[in-house]
């Protein structure tokens, strides 16, 4: 069941000039939240924005009864969220969307870029409970875009690429040496990040016949399946990213990969 509630900002932490973590305390006991779920955040006092903004749930703290979001500043709305102070209220609709599915066998790869790594902490925790071995591959333009790798080291090995080579291997994620291994042995590849990255990863997954799930970030007006603005083309017609997704198996999408 979806909820709409006023959360309270209890933590706000800038990771660098354009990325921050914001922790919000729930007014009621949190429901179960699955990796892939997102929330629609109302920017009530933000001038110039109108619609809510969707963000993946990065972290759930059952003890503090809080949710944390990992946010990259893109425009007006994220800039406003970046300026919030502790104690301020945020109205949130959650938990929204579907979730990542369990892998077909016990070794998985998660590929992320930018704020696309957001759902992988919850996913890591979920899969660890099932005893799945995980590898993480994160890419970015430069060192500044590679954040919080240490958060993932508790779940598995973390590899990095940057376009300028300032950290990790130089190049795109798709060029990383771990993807050059033959055979590529993963029971599932999960990916979230910029569209071109996800498409390139989906292409590799297809070549190696590895199941691949992507988490899409289509623009949304409602987040609850009411407006039909967020659609993605699938083999069985247009689907809503907010309700049928945000996680899709790439085989169901009509992507030319």
């Amino acid at each position, binding site marked *: 069941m979806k909820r709409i509630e006023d959360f309270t900002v209890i933590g706000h932490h800038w990771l660098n000039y354009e990325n921050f973590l914001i922790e919000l305390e729930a007014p009621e006991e949190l429901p179960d939240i699955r990796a892939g779920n997102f929330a629609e955040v109302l920017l009530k006092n933000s001038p110039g924005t109108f619609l809510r903004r969707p963000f993946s749930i990065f972290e759930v703290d059952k003890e503090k009864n809080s949710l944390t979001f990992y946010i990259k500043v893109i425009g007006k709305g994220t800039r406003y969220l970046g300026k919030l102070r502790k104690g301020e209220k945020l109205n949130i609709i959650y938990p929204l969307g579907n979730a990542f599915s369990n892998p077909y066998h016990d070794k998985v790869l998660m590929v992320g870029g930018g704020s696309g790594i957001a759902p992988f902490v919850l996913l890591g925790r979920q899969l660890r409970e099932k005893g799945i071995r995980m590898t993480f591959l994160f890419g970015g333009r430069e060192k500044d875009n590679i954040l919080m790798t240490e958060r993932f080291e508790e779940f598995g090995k973390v590899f990095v690429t940057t376009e300028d080579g300032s950290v990790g291997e130089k190049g795109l994620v798709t060029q990383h040496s771990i993807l050059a291994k033959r055979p590529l042995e993963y029971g599932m590849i999960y990916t979230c990040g910029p569209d071109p990255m996800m498409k390139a990863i989906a292409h590799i997954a297809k070549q190696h016949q590895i199941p691949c799930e992507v988490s899409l970030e289509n623009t949304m007006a409602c987040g609850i399946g009411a407006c039909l*603005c*967020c*659609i993605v083309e699938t083999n069985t017609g247009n689907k809503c990213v907010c309700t049928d997704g945000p996680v899709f198996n790439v085989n169901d999408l009509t992507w030319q990969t």
Partner: protein
Amino acid sequence: MADLSVQIHDLHLKNPVTTASGTFAYGEEFIDFIDVNKLGGIFVKGLTLENREGNPYPRMAETSSGMLNSVGLQNKGIDHFVNVIYPRIKHFDTHIIPNVNGFTIEDYVKVTEKLNELEDIKAIELNISCPNVKEGGMAFGIKRTSAVAATTAVRKACKKTLIVKLSPNVTDIADMARAVVDAGADAVSLVNTFLGMAIDAGKRKPVLATVTGGLSGPAIKPIALRMVWEVYKAVSVPVIGIGGIMNATDAIEFMLAGATAIQVGTANFIDPRVSVQIVDGINDYLEKNNFTSVHQLIGALET
């Protein structure tokens, strides 16, 4: 509690607050947030004869105090509605009002006929104002002759209360309202969205895949309000006011301008609870001002 009930021809609404087509899906999406039975009615997502995938992505652009959409009537077709959705939602203790769309007059008529069979449907809304389809839709609603032709044909086929939804993209909306009323509309609803456009200056490309889309939200409220007032003065059937209604005050303004009922659209995206809050807000206003009935507001603007 003041008397909130209103009458749209044969349709009796427990209160004047309904939700606008395309912004409330089939109502089910909102039951986690509100008791939809508290609404006067639900205008459900636009229906067409056949399954329609709608327009390509992106379909949405945020604008100053508003949004553009180019959904393009995505729906699974009238038969799916009749067989799958209707049985699921007909038990709602509020009026379900289908929004009827077509690309030809025949389409409109066929969809209307299929809806005649549904006992719990008391009214339909004829949408001759969708700006997001190449044929049909708004093309019908911006020309007097085609608006009249569509209304006449559907009137003949329709056994329910017939509400015709007008396009604001016209020079003279009062004239259009008169025309469809003369052609048999039992009520008119207005406005549908304004044809607009958004550009990404950085990419030098349109934001929407279809280039243009329909503008909704508080940005359009002043124009919608003026049009409702003009139409109220021009016709003697009930007027349903739509356009940027975000709260009870906005709803009351539309009623003062002449609306018998109102539809809440884009506001449902900002807060899914808002429609029911508006019902309560209207009641509070009436009580605070010692009105016993919501009828005391309709067209009560002192000019």
